[in-house]
């Protein structure tokens, strides 16, 4: 009996040493699959961006268009038609970064226009900048394409389970001709038991 007690104490010690001790806060893999809740998460964002960037850069007319030059694109807002609060700008930021790093596209950043304007005005008006080195107005490049899209969801639930379906659509429009040159879609379905959900 004493032996059994001793083994039990050792086992309890092992449990505590192997699992319960150690830091309560730790860094994790940012690209790991995250299933904390059924709501939109980091895995969904990363999956959407990876799929749509792959689709866009391998679409034959776009491959041709980007073979010898890097077209200039501006990113419009993604309409969030889901019932959740989703930072769609974060999705387009990731897509924009991936496209820029692919070396296939260049971007004009419409979110920085005000700051750029203020800086250029400062260079001209402040008297602190050498006029020969001040950035000239009216020399910026206009975007040829616009990237925009929608995000929608369908949520269904019963007493025991819940199903969430997301659809993210991204489109590339030629600003001069008005022709939509490319469109890509990514669908995501997630299901969960009611007791574990918190949308």
């Amino acid at each position, binding site marked *: 009996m004493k032996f059994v007690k001793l083994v039990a104490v050792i*086992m309890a010690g092992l449990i505590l040493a192997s699992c319960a001790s150690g830091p309560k806060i730790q860094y994790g893999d940012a690209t790991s699959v995250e299933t904390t809740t059924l709501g939109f998460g980091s895995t969904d964002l990363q999956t959407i961006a*990876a799929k749509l960037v*792959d689709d866009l850069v391998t679409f034959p007319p776009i*491959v041709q268009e980007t073979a010898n030059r890097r077209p200039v694109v501006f990113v419009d807002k993604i309409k969030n038609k889901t019932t959740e609060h989703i930072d769609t700008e974060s999705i387009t930021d990731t897509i924009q970064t991936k496209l820029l*790093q*692919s070396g296939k596209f260049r971007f004009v950043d419409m979110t920085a226009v005000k700051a750029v304007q203020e800086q250029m005005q400062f260079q001209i008006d402040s008297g602190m900048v050498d006029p020969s080195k001040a950035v000239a107005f009216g020399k910026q490049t206009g975007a040829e394409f616009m990237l925009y899209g929608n995000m929608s969801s369908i949520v269904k639930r019963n007493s025991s389970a819940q199903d969430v379906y997301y659809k993210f659509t991204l489109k590339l429009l030629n600003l001069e001709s008005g022709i939509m040159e490319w469109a890509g879609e990514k669908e995501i379905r997630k299901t969960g038991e009611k007791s574990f959900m918190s949308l």
Partner: protein
Amino acid sequence: MRKALVRTAMLAGLSGIMMGCAVNETATVTVNDDGTTQIIESNSGLLSDSLSIADTKTGFVGNLLKAQVSIKNDSRKQLNFQYKFKWLDKNGFEVAIDGRPWTPISITPYESKTVQGVAPNPTVNSFKILVQD
């Protein structure tokens, strides 16, 4: 009665250690741009016994490497795991670290599934595919 309780507690503790602290290991496949070299390093206990790479294809879309890997479930049970592409330049440096997420995949017994990926930029000329359970 007391003995049985102690035994149950010991078993529960042991299974707690085994399940709660399980480590995910990876299996790696490397394919060079000429498509000839293929090195398989299987260091995953569960996956190396159950998975195999049935086929790999590489090609260039414009100047971006496109990779396709067909993964086969050699076991008699459904396998749920995650995969991820790792892109390398000609010097073996990893390109766009953490650029792609772990992607969940499920393969039914003896079935093959194809996964595809496109390199993040033109410097890439080889890739690895990682799997974890």
